[in-house]
């Protein structure tokens, strides 16, 4: 599904990613862990197509398409979704209105018909319940005045409506208390199936207690220095990152 080869990227001439190799197959959940400044968020942003990064080498193909050459909205059309670490507030733009435009944008990209207002509303009602988002947030401006937990839940809610093939969760656990974390994780787990893949970027092992990954990769200084199963996360929790980063150096 996703194949990243020797990916190098820099920002303002400063190299951040220095050769990432990663293969994600349908239905797999990969956790990307690592200390601050290791390039975790950069990897998410580069995959989703955020501007300001320069890819200097390597490639990423998604279902056979050269992902890095696509515009962000085209990547969404292909089925990539990024759950933001800091969801953005958009004053005056109704949350559901935005989501409808997004879903229909994706459908148009795929050559599918627009969803009727009635069908869309049905979908929204079903999903908003499933992720436990307060319904009153639906008609508020996007993320404006939402609490930290509400913002993250809104991300998962959007994901559940847009039904991506690959979801990238960028530090979705940051700033959440344990209850909010559980709720968000439940929402994510409900979306896991044999086709859908996840890349879960996190600093802490805590989130992985609830979203149990198939693979764990440790990122340091822009490279994956260790990969393993879910038990690697527990090892990191117990021993920290130092033993790995010093081992790699």
């Amino acid at each position, binding site marked *: 599904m996703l194949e990243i080869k020797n990916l190098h990227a820099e920002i303002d001439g400063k190299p951040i990613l220095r050769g990432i190799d990663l293969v994600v197959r349908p239905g797999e959940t990969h956790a990307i862990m690592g200390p601050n400044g290791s390039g975790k968020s950069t990897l998410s942003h580069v995959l*989703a197509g955020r501007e300001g990064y320069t890819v200097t080498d390597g490639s990423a193909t998604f279902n056979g398409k050269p992902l890095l050459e696509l515009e962000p909205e085209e990547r969404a059309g292909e089925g990539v979704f990024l759950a933001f670490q800091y969801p953005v507030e958009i004053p*005056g733009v109704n949350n559901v209105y935005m989501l409808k435009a997004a879903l229909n944008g994706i459908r148009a990209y795929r050559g599918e018909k627009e969803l009727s207002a009635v069908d869309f509303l049905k979908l929204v009602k079903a999903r908003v319940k499933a992720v436990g988002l307060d319904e009153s947030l639906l008609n508020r401006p996007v993320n404006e005045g939402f609490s930290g937990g509400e913002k993250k839940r809104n991300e998962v809610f959007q994901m559940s409506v847009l039904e991506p093939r690959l979801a990238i969760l960028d530090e979705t656990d940051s700033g959440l208390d344990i209850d909010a974390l559980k709720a968000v994780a439940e929402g994510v787990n409900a979306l896991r199936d044999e086709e859908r893949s996840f890349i879960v970027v996190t600093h802490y092992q805590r989130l992985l207690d609830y979203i149990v990954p198939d693979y764990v990769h440790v990122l340091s200084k822009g490279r994956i220095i260790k990969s393993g199963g879910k038990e690697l996360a527990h090892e990191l929790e117990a021993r920290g990152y130092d033993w790995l980063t010093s081992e790699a150096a």
Partner: protein
Amino acid sequence: MASNAQDIEKIVDRQYAAGFFTEIDQDTVPPGLDTDTIRLISAKKNEPEWMLEWRLKAFARFQQMREPNWAHVSYPPIDLQAISYYSAPKSDKDRPQSLDEVDPKLLETYEKLGIPLEEQKMLAGVAVDAVFDSVSVHTTFRDKLAEAGVIFCSFSEAVQEHPELIQKYLGSVVPVTDNYYAALNSAVFTDGSFVYIPKNTRCPMELSTYFRINAMNTGQFERTLVIADEGSYVSYLEGCTAPMRDENQLHAAVVELVALQDAEIKYSTVQNWYPGDEEGRGGIYNFVTKRGDCRGARSKISWTQVETGSAITWKYPSCVLKGEDSVGEFYSVALTNNLQQADTGTKMVHLGRGTRSTIVSKGISAGRSQNAYRGLVRIAPGAEGARNYTQCDSLLLGDRSAAHTFPYIECRNPSAQVEHEASTSKISDDQLFYLRSRGIGQEDAVNMIVNGFCKEVFKELPMEFAVEAQKLLGISLEGAVG
């Protein structure tokens, strides 16, 4: 991947979608401005003597006045002698009685704009007085309005048929000496709209006028007078677009509103005059004087405007709050692109006790445009307990446009409360990326953010007009909107 700033420029650098030109024979007088011109206009319109005298008096005053230069706009000197002051479609002499008699090319023009008269006629609740150049060509729903006692007609008709109302109210809000352009308008205005709502009458439909400039080198001087008698209500919609052309055009309209005791006037404008091309060539000079007089106690006047067009906009719809507890409102979206210049805002003059005013101004600057808000809030010594709230937000697109704010507050009553809030922001890369990563194309994303920014103003517009306004904003920003 191109930078965001460049992408935004691509989106905003669109051609004027309403730019086309309809060939219709014009009955146009040679350029030039003197008392003979004014006599000619008056004679062509078969005006009574008092009207001609009023015009000549205005012209005499105009000749002693100078063009104002305080606005934050710049343009080459306007040669008033090079302008033709009268132009009417040939069908003027025998006015069409139905759509069948209207010049098909004119109808075509409206259809290109997406506002076919045929459809509007059927649109329940909207009467249309379409002003094509200087003479009203078509008026609908007259009968239904007449039933309610509402007078809605062209200004020329009103001069003939309701001289007592014209003589009583014309120039009573905007005196001929008010300013340079108002004086010029008073001398040479050719037509416009007249509305009178009788006592305790709620106008049964929204009144709507579509303006369109369509003659080369012809100045357009519209005159609008709306009178809401005691306890009445009217919602008036004014909208316009203009065909593409290469010559600058002067547009100096005057709009006067009078609200008597307990009356309310809601005046909404969507303005889309031709703004000129990317290099700033052509485009309309829009020097407008709009003022409302809350003459009676508890009267209310509300201005809502969406300004996307014109090369230069110089416009300050204002309220004079004379009546006790009268209310003035101003909601504005002004979008400038390319080399457009806008200096727009409002004046709220509080004279009566307990008067209240609200100002919400949203300025959007794109391209290399200049967008200024200029507002005056004046509280007179007698305006006990007056209140004003002003909110003034600017949004910048790209990095070559500019926003300016010039708020003036004069408060001469210690019991008054005046609040002013202002903000300036840019469309952030974060917002754009967020929407795009959800599958929304860049153009739609920009449009969505801009529309969100304007929401507080759009919700003040009548429903159909809000849709029109969003569409215009979309056209101005990105060419086409579904």
